[in-house]
């Protein structure tokens, strides 16, 4: 066997392996797409390649008066946008303090919070429920947003601080000598340079409300406050098979925008994660 044929065989093997993985990845996704185009509502009797395919479930989601899908979409967008913006602000401020200033608790503060964060959130839910009840924020989107922002702080601060640490300190020191104030250095020097990691933070926090259903299921009670994940879960929670095609249609409509944004930003995502996490 010559070197050339050996190399060719290796390449063929790699393509084959990647091809098999492709099949495994696409099968469930295509199956869902196919199912969402079935005219019937139950899982039983639906097929991946329906003969008389139709968009009836998509239409139902949008136009049927008994469907709350658009309302849920609106709720989720509100929660996601506010959470994303507020977390970026709060997180970058804290990360800036941890990266550039001396203060009491700086050295161990962030690690303490990360450690605390490790304890299972689920058990915290009982306490959060009581707390929100105490301040009358139960069953409101505000309560949900506050918890998302607070919960996101430790991990994201860790990432952003790692990124800030890689920015040369000479930059802000020379600005300080030129008489720039604290906030000015922060807004005109640090923030623009940290765009990649801030994009990661914004994206992660934007997506959480689309993906999370445990927290909303505990905080939100009335259907008009539901987020998408919770609403969709309730579609099939009661009788698993019965609303499955409708669920599939709703799921496709969540997955497409998220996946698009995600793939579009993946370069930022990877560079932000690797530099923040390995150097942090």
């Amino acid at each position, binding site marked *: 066997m010559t070197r050339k044929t050996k*190399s060719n065989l290796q*390449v063929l093997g790699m*393509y084959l*392996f*990647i091809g098999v*993985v492709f099949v495994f990845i696409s099968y*469930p*996704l295509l*199956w869902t797409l196919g199912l969402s185009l079935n005219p019937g509502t139950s*899982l039983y009797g639906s097929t*991946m390649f329906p003969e008389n395919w139709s968009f009836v479930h998509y239409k139902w989601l949008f136009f049927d008066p008994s469907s709350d899908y658009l309302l849920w979409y609106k709720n989720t967008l509100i929660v996601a946008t506010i959470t994303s913006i507020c977390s970026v602000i*709060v*997180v970058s401020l804290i990360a*800036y*303090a*941890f990266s550039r*200033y001396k*203060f009491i608790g700086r050295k161990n503060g962030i690690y303490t*919070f*990360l*450690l*605390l964060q*490790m*304890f*299972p959130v*689920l*058990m*915290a*839910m009982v*306490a959060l429920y*009581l*707390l929100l009840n*105490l301040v009358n924020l139960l069953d409101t989107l505000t309560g949900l947003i*506050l918890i998302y922002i*607070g*919960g996101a*702080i*430790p991990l994201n601060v860790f990432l952003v601080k790692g990124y800030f*640490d890689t920015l040369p300190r000479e930059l802000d020191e020379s600005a300080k000598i030129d008489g720039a104030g*604290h906030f000015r250095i922060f807004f005109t020097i640090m923030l623009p340079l940290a765009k990649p990691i801030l994009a990661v933070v914004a994206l992660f926090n934007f*997506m959480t409300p*689309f993906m*999370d*259903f445990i927290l909303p299921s505990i905080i939100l009670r009335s259907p008009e406050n539901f987020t998408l994940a919770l609403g969709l*879960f309730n579609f*099939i929670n009661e009788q*698993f*098979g019965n609303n499955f095609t409708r669920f599939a249609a709703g*799921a496709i409509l*969540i*997955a497409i925008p*998220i996946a698009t944004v*995600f*793939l579009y930003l*993946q370069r930022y995502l*990877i560079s932000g994660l*690797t530099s923040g*996490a*390995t*150097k942090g």
Partner: protein
Amino acid sequence: MAKQTHNPKVAVTLSLVPGLGQLYNRHYLKGATFLLLTISFILFFYQFLNIGYWGLLTLGEIPRLDDSRVLLAQGIISLIITGFAITFHVLNLLDAYKEAVKFQQGVRPDSLRKRFRAGWNKSFPYILIGPGLFLLIFVVIFPLLYMVSIAFTDYNLYNSPPKNLLNWVGFENFISLVTVPIWRSTFFSVFLWTVIWTLVATTLQIALALILAIFVNDPRIKFKKFIRTVLILPWAVPAFVTILIFAALFNNDFGAINNDILGPLFNQAIPWMTDPFWSKIALIGIQVWVGFPFVFAIFTGILQSISKDWYEAADMDGASSWQKFKSITFPQVMFATAPILIMQYAGNFNNFNIIYLFNQGGPAVRGQNAGGTDILISWVYNLTFETQNYNMAAAISIIIGLIIAGFAFYQFRRTRSFKEEGEM
């Protein structure tokens, strides 16, 4: 013009009432502000703290009127407030002492403007972290303390407020966990499966990611961008959607895996949902599907940053691909990503979503009060929200937390060791 008569000790003693020491140091504005803050703190919080501490100690005295849960919450918030008050008080004492020493040595006090400026510079980082810290305390710290407290009470379905009062029971819950037969057998079997699940699912997910990352990074492979995009797809689709879809695919009766693949090809149907063994296999498979793209993305980033020179040098020495992988690629990738990989293990240890959404931790198993695929965290969920064994759930949560904290501690020590230069 040193003033020997000015005594720092007097300043500290006076400062036991915040403000007086500062007045003694002739910082009139500061002293007045401190005094005012102290008075308003006492006026504002006295009642709250009083009830809080009483509640924390007794957990209420009259059933139906005193809600132990609320009292406990108020007690914990009182503790947090007290913690802050003590911190401020210590700072106030230190300030009184330092300023008094300066005064004694005759350092001329700075102008008000200068002092203002210094104060602004010094307090700036606190202003930055203030709002976030406030949120953190209420969203992370408070719930955690609450959970820890519940583990030491007798809060369960049969003894639940406001109808009954809670009592402190010490370590009783932890002891029952290892002595009462049903709890012990459940705890150990769930724990064993949690460990196996964590190790197998995460390792497979990392191995697949590593193989794919190396293959796609090979210079002979074309369409890299397209391949990477497809491989990242499972990460981009919301996990809860994927898991529910897999739950349908694996469904015993109508699932496509039994009906469209195993049925026609092998004429066989596997009880994915009702047999613990097959459920576990399915869960591991799904987790690998859901979890590998993230690791793949990280690995890809690292692989691209490994210097080409090393491979060229290895080629000159006539190294085989396997040798290159073993001595260059593998150690490089593992070293750079160790913290992320450890977090992957920790994440799967607590991967509630997949277990719960697939079949609620089922199927049921005789002789224990958790399902066949329940891991610790999903068991905690069941205990909390289905059977309302809050005390046991909290005790198990503490155990989970300690294990995970061990993981995390190990990781942070590692990360710290090679970032010394970044320290101030």
